[in-house]
């Protein structure tokens, strides 16, 4: 299905100013180039794969150039949208008069402060690059669950943030220690480490916000502004201790991975007889403050991602379905110990908790542990969700107490059964929540994955209905804030806001104060009026 192409054009004067600011090589209005930014099937609820074609594409290489772009856009009343690694419709043009800011030329790691445990990066540095360099220094980072070729800056400043190691590294929003931010006015605001006065090592602030009132809530809140509040050009992020080796010899790429698991790592699957014991055990695990990585990868997720052809056939057999159903209450748990004693302590805690809840701890056998170790540390698995049908979607996702997450999963399953019956998505046994606990169980996350093929018109058409049904259920059953429904932009905020302390009024005020002309593309955030 084609998407209407804007007939709008950029004024000649704006074109000359862009060229002057960026050089001819780094600016284009050519439809051939601009269409390279107009196809974004992920996170798109309309059928088809095309989104708005931007009027122009810019490739800045510095904060000054980003400022110049924003100022030219302000002067000519053009909307603009920044993206970093650019994965998803939320990074593309939401309207028909948008200048795309592709930040891929800003790809430097600017500073390592090992003493104060942070690293300062530009937008186009990806998680795997930082992790590889961090490990050489004995550190690790939080990698959000979209995978390690995504930009941590994009995710931490502008979009969600949960990831597989959340039990020990929390979410991206907690990992920002400072930003450099080109505001929608074109001015530059520096926060936290990026805003400290002294450049000499050791004297910088390494709190996220520095002294004074925090701007973090305004900057990103729970979900991030998805490009609707200006452009972030630098970010300082936390470094965590890394208990593994500085370099890892890896053979293979994904399913064929062969990696030596370090002895101080224990990789397990913990299985329980029912939902209650599974959830209670997780609360206890959180309380015990153990673990490096914890996550429920549903059976459907594992099969759909690794053996998609098999998952298509499974529903033919009721018996197999029953067996798989019996395996649903499980989570993966990884220990990364800093000493033998630590290993023993964490292991014994885990075993006791699981045993107390009637479960069993299964240690990952070789060679499976290669995959379960390295691909989860590196977060290299996520794009496998596209194997089943070419696309995926996700709903719920409100970060709440884990019992609420369990409700999200239960209701998500009920809703999905109806959509499976109408062939809106592939049959994943309806049980496909991706669930984790964060910060030692302080809160949890659960989202209901949905495998579909956007090239199938019937499937493509029903994504929006599904998203709406889940948003309605969120409201009706008080399921964790707005969850992913937030990303539908203004119209959803207006529905959810009244049930949630009228947050939408405040959000709109923030947008209006920072971007009165509504030029920082807010399709996935909120408009100023």
């Amino acid at each position, binding site marked *: 299905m084609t998407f209407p192409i804007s007939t709008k054009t950029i004024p000649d004067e704006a074109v000359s100013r862009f060229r002057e600011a960026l050089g001819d090589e780094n600016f284009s209005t050519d439809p*051939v*180039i601009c*269409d*390279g930014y107009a196809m974004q099937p992920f996170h798109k609820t309309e059928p088809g*794969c095309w989104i708005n074609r931007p009027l122009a594409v810019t490739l800045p290489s510095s904060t000054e150039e980003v400022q110049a772009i924003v100022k030219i856009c302000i002067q000519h009343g053009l909307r603009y949208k920044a993206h970093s690694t650019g994965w998803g419709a939320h990074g593309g043009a939401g309207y028909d008069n948008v200048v795309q800011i592709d930040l891929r030329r800003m790809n430097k790691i600017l500073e390592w402060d090992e003493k104060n445990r942070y690293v300062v990066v530009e937008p186009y540095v990806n998680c*795997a690059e930082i992790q*590889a360099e961090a490990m050489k220094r004995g550190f690790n980072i939080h990698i959000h669950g979209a995978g390690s070729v995504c930009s941590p800056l994009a995710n931490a400043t502008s979009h969600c943030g949960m990831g597989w190691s959340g039990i020990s590294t929390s979410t991206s929003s907690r990992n920002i220690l400072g930003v450099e931010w080109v505001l929608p006015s074109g001015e530059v605001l520096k926060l936290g480490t990026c805003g400290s006065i002294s450049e000499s090592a050791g004297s910088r602030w390494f709190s996220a916000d520095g002294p004074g009132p925090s701007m973090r809530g305004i900057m990103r809140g729970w979900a991030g502004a998805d490009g609707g509040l200006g452009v972030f050009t630098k970010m300082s992020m936390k470094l965590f201790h890394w208990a593994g080796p500085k370099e890892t010899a890896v053979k293979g790429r994904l399913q064929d991975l062969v990696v030596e698991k370090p002895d101080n790592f224990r990789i397990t699957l913990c299985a329980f007889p029912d939902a209650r014991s599974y959830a209670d055990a997780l609360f206890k695990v959180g309380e015990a403050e153990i673990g490096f990585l914890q996550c429920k990868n549903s059976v459907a997720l594992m099969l759909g991602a690794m053996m*998609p052809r098999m998952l298509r056939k499974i529903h033919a057999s009721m018996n197999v379905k029953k067996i798989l159903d019996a395996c649903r209450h499980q989570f993966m748990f990884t220990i990364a110990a800093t000493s033998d004693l630590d290993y023993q302590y964490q292991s014994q805690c885990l075993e006791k908790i699981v045993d107390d809840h009637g479960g069993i701890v299964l240690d990952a056998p070789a060679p499976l542990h290669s995959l379960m170790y390295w691909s989860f540390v590196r977060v290299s698995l996520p794009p496998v969700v596209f194997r089943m049908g070419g696309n995926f979607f996700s709903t719920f996702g409100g970060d709440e107490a884990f019992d609420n997450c369990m409700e999200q999963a239960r209701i998500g399953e009920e809703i999905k059964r109806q959509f499976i019956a109408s062939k809106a998505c592939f049959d994943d046994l309806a049980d496909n929540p991706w669930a984790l606990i964060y910060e030692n169980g302080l809160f949890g996350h659960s989202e209901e994955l949905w495998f579909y093929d956007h*090239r199938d018109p019937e499937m493509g058409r029903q994504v929006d209905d599904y998203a709406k049904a889940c948003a309605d259920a969120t409201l009706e059953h008080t399921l964790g804030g707005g969850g992913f429904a937030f990303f539908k932009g203004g119209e959803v905020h207006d529905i959810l806001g009244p049930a949630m302390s009228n947050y939408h009024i405040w959000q709109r005020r923030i947008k209006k104060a920072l971007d009165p002309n509504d030029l920082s593309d807010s399709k996935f955030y909120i408009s100023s009026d």
Partner: protein
Amino acid sequence: MALEAYRRDMEGCSRCSSCKWVPMSQMKSHRFSQVCPSISRYHFHSFAGSGKLMLGLSLLDNRIEMNDSVADVAYKCTLCGACDANCKVYRDDIDIAEVIEEIRATCVENGQFFAEHQMMIDDLKRENNVFGEPKNARGDWAEGLGLKDANAQKVDVLFHAGCRFSYDEDLLGVIRGAATLIRDAGVDLGVAGKAESCCGGRAFGLGFRGDGKNFAEDMAVRVKSSGAKVLLTPCADCYGAFKYAYRRMGVDLGVQVMHISEYLKALAANGKINFKNRVDRKITYHDPCHLGRRSEPYAGPWEGNKLLRPASRKRDGRKGVYDAPRDLLRSIPGIRLVEMERIREYSWCCGAGGGVWEADQELSDFAARERIEEALTTGADALATSCPWCERNLRDAAESMGAGIEVLDVTELVARSIKGEVIS
């Protein structure tokens, strides 16, 4: 197959950008994490593998017109296949390289390609080689080696030198040395001399399908009349054409195709050659795209939903030739093989392929210099490879950079070990 046949491949791109990077699990540094020369140099997304899928779809959907810009994006690409191999770490249903080939064929149908490519095709048609060198001089490299004339006598093994080895004076020693090694191992070896012509792989890669097929069919006739059971080539580019492009064009050679590294390895295994002498060098190895991921045999078109295509029918780059040259190097006493970060199916391209060396010197140099920089980080004193196109481009880059690293063919090192001297 026309571009339309790949509509679902193009529409299926999830824009995950795996086609721009080495596989996530293999990323070892910030410096050497990228894998696509085209987007690394030109930055706009259209230049990535994913962007080329969008380009094709945009053409099909009549969102853009066929014009110079389309050709610019389609041809400023080394057709190295790194995007294809890395996309397939995750996807079963997208064949990026085939889409790029179809876009190029569409460009040619519409007369949109670079002038340099037209010149090359004209040269090819006139002189049977991509350089426009006299066709009569093609077999001169073999003078005095006493190789059998495959046009006049039946041979077990037909040795196809390829255009680059036939005419690049700098590489004369390499090709003569390679043929000598095989001859001395007692193999019934012949060459076609003046009658040898280009394999046609370049023409196919540029989208000149008819010309490519003519050369391929011509090759098939020559192979058949020689009676050879094995078609042996020291050129990775030709090897890739025989293994992949020929099958895409529907031409069956009917013989076993072997690269010289595979053949030498087999000779060593049978005790026909012995690595007698030490070669005390620290070597790093560059995987030529057309010996590696691009040589993976074409399994035929997949009718229907590619999501259901079995893994065995998916060309994911892993079935290319990676171990034979490395095994040879490891067999040579004294050689210490040190690997670069980007190797095997996620290797960085040397920049010579896909018509880029002929038409976009800047991209070609950019890619080669990047590879030399990567080689230098290993501390190796020589960079070995198995393709004359890679050798030419990497040697030029190393020289212009004053990098102080020698660029060698694997067969040169083998010859040094077997003969104890450089054969020229």
